[in-house]
């Protein structure tokens, strides 16, 4: 059905047009952005990038580094803590399990806005404002219940006979978890990694609240501060830095598509 394909291509093109146009415009001289709604590039200008990169003090490199450190911390935190909790929910038999499991599922739906005020009070008393701790510690404490649930579902699908056999051979739970279940969980761990990467990289609300010192700014916070501090006419450099901030997301998308699609289809992520 060529009509169907034509329709889909047109819809897709219209949807992605603004993003493509932003990329092209970031490579044009600043004043052309207002005049040229097309996608054809006459010449390649990289001034917007150098200008945007050095517009704030420190330069954009610092923010990229900060975001990278933060993202890595969150990924490690989520992988370790969520897989441990998931193992307990999927494989261990303990008192009040259904009740705790219910609470865990409930926290998936808990909006961050509801907990942010007392959490901020707690972390500011601890002197953690303007560090990455308020952003990473929650991940180390398995508060991204979405991933716990995703991993529970995955572990439930693994054959129980494997851990039973290991048990008979005298393995305790720590070894069964580390040497049998964890290696088999790679797809679920990959899904968690890729979602944590994208969500943390994009997250603005909590980073805006906890990171107020420019030295500690992450990419979204810096980008917003850059946009606020420049006159509206310098779209070129704003677009350039926006493109820079989206490149990692785009790469994660290319590398991890398979896991993203699977993760959403089974548990309904964002």
């Amino acid at each position, binding site marked *: 059905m060529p009509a169907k394909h034509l329709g*889909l291509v047109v819809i897709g093109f219209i949807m*992605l047009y603004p993003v493509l146009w932003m990329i092209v415009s970031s490579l044009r001289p600043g004043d052309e952005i207002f005049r040229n709604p097309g996608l054809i590039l006459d010449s390649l200008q990289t001034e917007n990038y150098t200008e945007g990169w050095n517009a704030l003090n420190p330069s954009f490199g610092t923010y990229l580094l900060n975001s990278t450190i933060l993202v890595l911390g969150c990924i490690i935190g989520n992988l370790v803590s969520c897989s441990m909790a998931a193992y307990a929910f999927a494989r261990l038999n303990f008192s009040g399990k259904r009740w705790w499991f219910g609470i865990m599922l409930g926290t998936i739906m808990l*909006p961050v806005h*509801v907990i942010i005020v*007392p959490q901020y009070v707690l972390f500011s008393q601890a002197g953690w404002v303007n560090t990455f701790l308020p952003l990473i510690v929650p991940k180390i404490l398995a508060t991204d219940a979405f991933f716990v649930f995703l991993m529970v579902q995955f572990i439930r699908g693994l054959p129980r006979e494997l851990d039973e056999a290991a048990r008979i051979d005298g393995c305790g739970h720590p070894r069964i978890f580390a040497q049998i279940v964890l290696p088999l969980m790679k797809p679920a761990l990959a899904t968690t990694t890729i979602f944590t990467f994208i969500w943390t990289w994009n997250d603005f*609300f909590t980073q805006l609240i906890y990171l107020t010192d420019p030295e500690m700014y992450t990419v979204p916070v810096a980008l917003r501060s850059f*946009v606020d501090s420049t006159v509206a006419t310098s779209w070129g450099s704003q677009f350039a830095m926006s493109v820079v901030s989206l490149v990692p997301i785009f790469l994660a998308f290319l590398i991890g598509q398979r896991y993203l*699609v699977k993760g959403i289809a089974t548990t309904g992520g964002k």
Partner: protein
Amino acid sequence: MSALDELRQLRHGGVQVRKRDNKAAFWFLAPWFAGLIFITVGPVLASFLLGFTKYNLIQPPKFIGFDNFARIFSDERLHNALGVTFTYVLVSVPLQLACALGVALLLDRGLRGLAFYRSAFYLPSLLGSSVAIAVLWTQVFGAEGLINRVLSFVGIEGRGWISDPDTALSTLIVLNVWTFGSPMIIFLAGLRQIPAVYYEAAAIDGASKWSQFWRITLPLLSPILFFNLVLQIIHAFQSFTQAFVVSGGTGGPSDSTMFYTLYLYQQGFSRFDMGYASALAWFLLLIIAAFTAINFWAAKYWVFYDD
């Protein structure tokens, strides 16, 4: 694996209930328990208590009874923010799900290039919540933005979509609809579960595509539609970044993009009125819970379970 099963039964003495692993479970769940106390449920309870106080982070909290909760009922800016948020949720979510379902139907059943299309339509949902896309939106819907450039080609004179209080919210609704990719993927997974024989039988009986959609696809997909609806409503209530960036943190023009979350942020983190912000947080939780409860109640009348 029957041998193993037998071994297990021997070890545990027949059909006896498996022994509890309380100690192991405690250690595996230790981080999660700590998270419950300090990061999730603990703060929810704490924010309830803070809601009864006046607290600015510097002086110790001062008990003021129900003042903060009473203020919720008299605060007109908040009522406006509720109106903005409800409009946003109730307009953008149905539109977003309609697009998701429509495109999913087009993509269903062995269409060539499915994986490519799926990725292309999904990409905006990954980008949509970023500051970068909000920056792009500010330009595209600005007075001299891309939309007005394109409109001028066909002789229509545009306006500053974002600077006009009548249209600012619509630009954010468009942005949310733009991210229909993730519910679309959930729809696609659901469509794949519907047995092809249903359609074959219906076709033999002479049912049109249209009635096949209403009588087979939609009823069988209704649990998925329900799931998407609950999830997307909860997500939409939490939108913050886009309104914040597009309005420069003010919720303007004339409070027309003042989302509830943005108002909460301003009370808590610009004015440091932590007591009122806590009360607002609780009120938000109640609103979301109410919407979810209504959804579950209404589901009885339209969600169809095929078992």
